């Protein structure tokens, strides 16, 4: 258990440490490396491996009401766009990992889910509510901050993702 927690420790590669609190549109998102929630694979997920793709970094928890809506809908978006260069990295911030696993049993997703045991990443991104997601362009810049999740939001995201995918590749 202790090992797991240690493994889950956020190895944060700071891009702009002074930023601290709130990530703004146009800024480069910090990269991070975290252990997967489903601990079968001990290898850490490094967000830098996704560079050049359009990335949706989604902060969620099992106790968050709108997350019951957002995860299944994100999964649909992921299925539709993953082959075109769209990635979802879900960052779970549950205090108890078991509750997140129970949640995913009911609503399985295809995209990678990492577990932020120390709960440090949300502060680095400047999460203001649950769920909050950051849509990053191919350069890793924040193009959209999505707070909360309501019916109809998926369509709005679909349009944005389509647009970002059409843009130039990574530098």
């Amino acid at each position, binding site marked *: 258990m202790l090992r797991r927690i240690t493994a889950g420790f956020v190895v944060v590669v700071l891009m702009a440490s002074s930023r601290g609190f709130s990530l703004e549109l146009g800024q480069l998102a910090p990269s991070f490396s975290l252990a997967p929630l489903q601990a079968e694979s001990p290898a850490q997920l490094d967000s830098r491996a996704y560079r050049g793709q359009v990335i949706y970094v989604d902060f969620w928890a099992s*106790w*968050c*009401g*709108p997350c*019951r*809506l957002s995860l299944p809908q994100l999964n649909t978006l992921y299925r539709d766009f993953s082959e075109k260069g769209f990635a979802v990295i879900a960052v779970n911030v549950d205090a108890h990992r078991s509750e997140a696993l129970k949640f995913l049993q*009911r609503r399985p997703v295809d995209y990678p889910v990492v577990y932020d045991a120390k709960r440090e990443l949300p502060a680095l991104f400047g999460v*203001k*509510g*649950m769920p909050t997601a950051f849509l990053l362009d191919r350069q890793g810049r924040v193009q959209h901050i999505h*707070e*909360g*999740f*309501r*019916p*109809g*939001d998926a369509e709005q995201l679909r349009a944005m993702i389509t647009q970002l995918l059409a843009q130039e590749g990574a530098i």
Partner: protein
Amino acid sequence: MSDDANTGKALRRLTAAALTIPGMISELAALAPASEASLDYKFSAYREADMAAEDVAGGTTSRYDIDSHLLRYVAPLGERVDLAVDLSYETMSGASPWFVMPGNNGPIQVMSGASIREQRKDVQVTVSRYFSSRTVASVVGGYSDENDYRAANVGLSVDHDLPGQQTTLSGGIAYSDDALSPTDGKSMADRIDSADKTSANVFGSVTQLVNEHTALQLGLSYALHDGYLSDPYKKYWVVDQSNALPDARPDRREAFTAEAKLRYFAVPANAALHLDYRYFDDDWQLASHTIDVAWYQNLPGGWQLVPSLRYYSQSQAFFYAPYFFTGRDDGYGSSDYRLSPYGAVSYRLALSKSWHELTLNLDWESYRASAQYALEDVQVENPALVDFDMLTLGMRWRWQ
């Protein structure tokens, strides 16, 4: 007297309770709209205990029974709007206290005659609009209908998260317009044909997150009731006239409440503690204290057990007496047990079991009132203080 005299008594004034707004922000964590629709149905059986034979001047000792069917539907309506609809249908039957006379061993109660059955229907619709993740406004409109009582109510409330989302400010106003028309008003000389009253209410509260396990809420409210506030089915006995006069109360009442509520999650026990206190004070010189403590114990397998305890104590209204030796100069008078000094203790136990979408629950409450439970010394106990038991069966379906 007419059979109709005792109808509708038990919940006569309850429509004003609809003044408060059944908002939908059920979670402490955030002002979040409903994520999915849910439907609740409950059946509750309310049974008042028989009165002690020695407290009653002949006639029936049995009192009120109420069966209630309650339906609540909550659903997201578009992206920023939630809807909640509450329906209730109640059937009431029984006898109710009429007036109190002096007896050899203290006051004795005269009950109204045999009862007839009466129904009450109530609908409340609440629409909440989320203006951002920080602000939500709710409007409520409702209507309640009984054989001899009709009430319409409207209300508005706003919740706003302060920056940092540690503190939520809430406030609202509500208004109710009630009309009563006693079913036998035209056949009894000293009973009114019809009457009206209005109630206006303004309230505000501050919710503060204290830490990861604790939240606190402090609230104040002010209400102004105006119009016919007497009980047309009650009388009070005046000894020197050897006569029972109609219940007569001031036609205006101002009430103030202060509330404090605490929620604490005990992680080791996997349980939540609820602690609620309310102070009530009005210009009828009536004050009360209410303390409510509940323990929500989560158990394995989706079970939850909730024991809770409520304590209530009130002082009397200035124009109340069990009976009067001589009429008051101001013309007011009431021997309604609800305006008498007493205390009450409620024990409750609730059990619920949740599956993914379905939750079943069972709730039992036992309420005992007595002058001995009052915080202050009571010289004469009103013989009509009520004891009741209430059993509620409920089910909830939440679409996921």
